[in-house]
């Protein structure tokens, strides 16, 4: 294909990618280097008829607004935002590492740093939910595949429900069920014989609830993809394994799983990326006190009265770097394959 024709085909996509992906990323990177201006303060003398005069500092609203208008991006802060306490917090980490009373103390104090608190939960969520949801999806796919045709339709519909429900609504429903007067919460209290046990009060329970919710809501995607993949497993090879003496489990282990491996890599990547931006369940479960995520930190910076664009930008850039690190094994493999092909 001539280069000109190729570009004619690709150009619309390229323009869209630049407009909707590249430019926003550049904008985020630039914003992350700036912070809001300090307010311009003026010293004013305040004299009372009978109390004498005193001087006090006041915000010069007009001068602040003028400064804001002159430099709308804010004050250039370089990488300061990245290293401050709300983000990478190198100084605080240094102090924690120098003065601590063991691993438990380090853990607790690191969890008090907002970025690390969000990052740790995000990573735990990614690496716990992704494999479990894939295993659940694969299990459902195998079970549904073994069902008689008549029952397949309703069961598939039922299995897809978690994916159909809006994440925020789904997590809210589960949150209510887990609250002390909800059916699950009350049952847990009853089982552990502890009337004070509640989701809000227990970080452990909050994490478990969020992770379980993640598995529940992510399972259907794996199920759909694996179920489609199962339809492509060659029947001859399966029968050949039966004749070779493979049990059902051995057939799954030696024929089905290797056949679905490329698909599993794809599902794992999509799920990892999806789970890395975990957000809705934290809001739905009102879990901010016990668990936050990188996406939630960005949301937190941008909501409320004072929008901290610089801080949100820095967290966004760090999130992008996290995604790149997560995807790097696959990117490296693809690059190697590409190079091999070129050679």
């Amino acid at each position: 294909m001539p280069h000109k024709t190729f570009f004619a085909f690709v150009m619309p996509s390229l323009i869209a990618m630049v407009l909707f992906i590249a430019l926003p990323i550049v904008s985020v990177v630039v914003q992350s280097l700036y912070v809001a201006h300090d307010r311009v303060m003026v010293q004013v003398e305040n004299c009372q008829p009978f109390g004498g005069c005193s001087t006090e500092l006041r915000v010069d609203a007009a001068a602040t607004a003028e400064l804001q208008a002159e430099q709308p991006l804010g004050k250039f802060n370089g990488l300061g935002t990245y290293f401050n306490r709300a983000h990478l917090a190198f100084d605080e980490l240094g102090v924690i590492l120098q003065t601590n009373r063991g691993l438990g103390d380090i853990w607790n104090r690191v969890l008090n740093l907002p970025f690390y608190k969000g990052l740790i939960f995000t990573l735990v969520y990614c690496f716990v939910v992704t494999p479990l949801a894939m295993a659940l999806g694969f299990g459902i796919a195998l079970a549904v595949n073994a069902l008689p045709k008549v029952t397949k339709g309703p069961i598939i519909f039922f299995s897809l429900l978690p994916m159909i429900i809006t994440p925020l609504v789904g997590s809210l429903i589960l949150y209510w069920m887990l609250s002390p007067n909800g059916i699950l919460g009350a049952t847990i209290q009853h089982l552990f014989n502890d009337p004070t046990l509640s989701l809000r009060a227990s970080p452990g329970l909050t994490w478990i609830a969020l992770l379980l919710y993640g598995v529940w809501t992510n399972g259907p995607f794996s199920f759909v993809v694996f179920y489609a993949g199962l339809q492509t497993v060659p029947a001859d090879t399966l029968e050949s394994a039966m004749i070779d003496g493979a049990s059902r489990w051995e057939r799954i282990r030696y024929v089905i799983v290797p056949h679905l491996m490329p698909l599993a890599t794809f599902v794992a990547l999509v799920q990892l990326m999806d789970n890395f931006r975990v957000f809705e369940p934290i809001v739905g479960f009102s879990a901010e006190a016990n668990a936050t995520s990188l996406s939630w930190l960005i949301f937190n910076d941008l909501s409320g009265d004072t929008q901290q664009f610089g801080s949100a930008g820095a967290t966004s850039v760090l999130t992008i770097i996290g995604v790149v690190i997560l995807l790097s094994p696959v990117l490296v493999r693809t690059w190697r394959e590409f190079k091999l092909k070129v050679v």
Partner: protein
Amino acid sequence: MSGLELRNIAKNYGAVSVIKGINLTVADGEFVALVGPSGCGKSTILRMVAGLEDITDGDILIGEKVVNELTPRERNIAMVFQSYALYPHMTVYQNMAFNLELSGKSKAEIETRVQEAARMLELEPLLDRKPSQLSGGQRQRVAMGRAVVRAPAVFLFDEPLSNLDAKLRVQMRGEIKALHKKVGVTSIYVTHDQVEAMTLADRVVVLNRGVIQQEGSPMELYRRPANLFVAGFIGSPAMNFFEATIAGGAAQATNGLRFPFVAERQLVDGHKVVVGVRPEHFASGDGAMEGEVTFVEPTGGQTFVTLDLAGHQTMVLVSSDEDIFAGNRLSVSAPLERTYVFDAETGVRLSAN
């Protein structure tokens, strides 16, 4: 090693009966080919023997033991599939060793048996390769190696050569025959290709619509087909057929064609029959019948000539030494002892030969 017996086996899919009471005995070490057109039930029979398909009725015996309820693993059979059905992520060695590993054989024994089978099938240089790195013929050899390595009681072949090109098919046919000679395992070979069945098997079973039409040695089927179906199916190119009526001890076809034949029993005049003459059995030259050559297909040693015999398009096989062209006139005769006559209604052979 052991023989195989099918006792009145039947298979129904709902109300549809696809196998209708098959009885077949395969002797220990015998090579039997099941041959028939698509949908005749030959693969279903093979799959029932393998245990991949339930049987509706009857018994399957392997080595005098009823195996109806046994799983494929417990039947001690090996099967070679048309698609080879190799495990794509395993090397040739692992493919061949898979069954032995599952059955808990020691590493040393697995090594010995795989190497032995690889030597037998000349697979030694390929043992570290994956199936995707092999040619079709090599893959089929691996599939056979996988079967051989297990030393099974019965070998089942399900159209194993259908995916190969013509030249390779002939070569692999020879290899399968040599393999059977070496290992001497009872084998059932399913194919729709009658040439394959005849060249390979000790005994050929012709099936149609779930019923055995005839079984016997390849030449027996060729020389004495039991009915019209077998006569038409066995032999390449296929037998020529002419609708006819018995008149004065001979078969009288339309437009004056007359076929004398040796009848097995007395037939009354007016009996509707079908006359069959193989293309290679027509004697060309001074014959009783003459027609115009409409089509000539030289194949090297022989030439297929399509002849218009009084309105019947008839295939005649002649030596390529004879120069025949379309438009020529050719006279042929059908030898008495090579003229087959079948009942038009039942298809049963009425001629003595």
